[in-house]
């Protein structure tokens, strides 16, 4: 085994980055080996964008003062990243059931690297969902300029990290697949309706205003819309905050959620 020992890299940074890549690669490998997950990732946009979005477009889009189709497409893209990443995190419960979490936790790497890799891996399925959403949008005649699409794609890891970190707070405490699935619905559904993904929230007030300000997806959506609507007349009416503020809030919320979620996860596994 000496030859293997000789190849061992000692840089801490290398090992942590390698861990993130390795865990992420495992998630992607498993994704492609599960035809059901692939089909669901691509079918979900059909339901979200095609059915919910199409219905809203036909019945509620009049007199808004902006192009609802484009507004909704952006909302659905971010929602898809959030929703699929969040749901993907429930696989941690599967890993717990097959004792694979123990194999990961006994390795000499940071728990944050393990969780970050897991989130980014789940984010890959989310990006597939995003692609599906774009295809459905194209069929519905809603498109975005390629440059702006690339910018959204560049922001997608941040969205996935934000959604996955939020999911970790709950997943870190749950050990039942059934409860995990319900909890994920509990996280994703309110965000879809209250953070402005498909319904504008500029005029929200009272408890709903407090709720949408507490949701990380509100800031993710606002950041993406600030990119999409930059320089357009709709910018003032559709974008709520300065992009720098959005970015800062997302970063802070992600780090806080990641720290709390990882702590819960490691603690729950250690006190099983």
């Amino acid at each position, binding site marked *: *085994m*000496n*030859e*293997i*020992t*000789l*190849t*061992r*890299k*000692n840089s801490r940074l*290398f*090992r942590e980055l*390698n*861990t993130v*890549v*390795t*865990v992420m*690669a*495992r998630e992607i*490998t*498993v994704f492609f*080996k*599960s035809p059901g997950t692939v089909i669901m990732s691509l079918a979900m946009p059909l339901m979200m964008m095609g059915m919910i979005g199409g219905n809203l477009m036909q019945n509620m889009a009049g007199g808004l003062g902006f192009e609802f189709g484009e507004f909704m497409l952006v909302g659905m893209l971010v929602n898809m990243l959030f929703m699929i990443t969040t749901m993907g995190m429930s696989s941690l419960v599967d*890993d717990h059931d*097959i*004792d*694979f979490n*123990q*194999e*990961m*936790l*006994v*390795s*000499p*790497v940071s728990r944050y690297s393990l969780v970050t890799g897991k989130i980014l891996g789940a984010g890959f399925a989310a990006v597939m969902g995003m692609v599906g959403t774009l295809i459905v949008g194209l069929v519905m005649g809603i498109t975005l300029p390629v440059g702006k699409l690339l910018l959204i794609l560049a922001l997608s890891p941040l969205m996935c990290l934000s959604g996955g970190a939020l999911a970790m707070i709950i997943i870190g405490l749950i050990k039942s697949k059934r409860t995990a699935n319900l909890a994920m619905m509990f996280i994703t559904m309110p965000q879809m309706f209250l953070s402005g993904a498909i319904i504008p929230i500029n005029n929200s007030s009272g408890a709903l205003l407090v709720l949408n300000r507490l949701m990380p997806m509100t800031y993710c959506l606002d950041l993406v819309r600030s990119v999409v609507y930059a320089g357009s007349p709709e910018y003032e009416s559709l974008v709520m905050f300065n992009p720098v503020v959005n970015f800062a809030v997302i970063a802070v919320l992600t780090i806080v959620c990641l720290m709390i979620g990882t702590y819960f996860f490691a603690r729950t*596994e*250690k*006190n*099983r």
Partner: protein
Amino acid sequence: MSMIEVNNLVKRYKRAKAPSVADVSFSVGDGEFFAFLGPNGAGKTTTISILITTLSKTSGEVRIAGYDVEKDARHVREKIGVIFQNPSLDPQLTAEENIRFHACLYGMYGYRPTFGLMPAAYRKRVLELAEIVGIQDALFRPIKKLSGGMQRKLEIIRSLAHTPDVLFLDEPTQGLDAVSRRSLWEYINKVRDQYGTTVFLTTHYIDEAEGVDKVCLINHGKIAACSSPEEMKKSLLRQELILDSEDKTALARELSALGLPFTVNGQHVVVPYQGSAQSVIARLRTKLTVLRIHEPTLEDAYVEFLNTTGREAA
């Protein structure tokens, strides 16, 4: 030097009436083969879980290779390899993908998406190890298509891939057939001979602990005895001569006259002795029809231990 040092270890689970591990202390030397024996619920898995840093302790001190399991958990994890009680492989990956995942997590190689793209040293080593444990044909098959024995062998390859100083085996042969058990132990012994790896074993199979350097018996969370298997057999059990004669009455009379204690057990007369059996046999004049020397096994000692500590064998 002690590779494992446990002092006054206590683990009390939330809402539990009694601690699962109560004031346990023992040490395992460098290169030693150590076994932890006890019935279900005795505290074996709780202890091993604390040693491998996956469970927090309530109090006490645990050091592995000189590192504290809580303060220097990362260093401890570098030094150990673990085979868990239940298989911990990803059933959706292939055997090789599971090994690659482990090797990359331990920082031995940068991750590459396929076996062919991994460094030559990795490929050579994986093929070599697979051949030793006889799973070369199954290397690229999904885990869910491998037998229990093959999965266990794969876990051994995986746990040894990063050359650990201490190998923890938590009932590694549970559910394996006799042939798989034997070949698995052959491989583990080979590794011990070659690399001097310290082995910490918990098992239900008493025969697996016969060849260890040191064995500790644990029950109700407490260590009842800790010594070499030979010493343990001597301290817990006595050697016996099993005799029979056509004239049992004469044999009994002679034994009494010689001052040798004996019992009649069914057809046979059982004579406990210490030291040499020859010295007893040479003094007997009655013609014997049966003469057997009963050497106690570790299993006998274990059963005796359970009888005296009041818990059924697992």
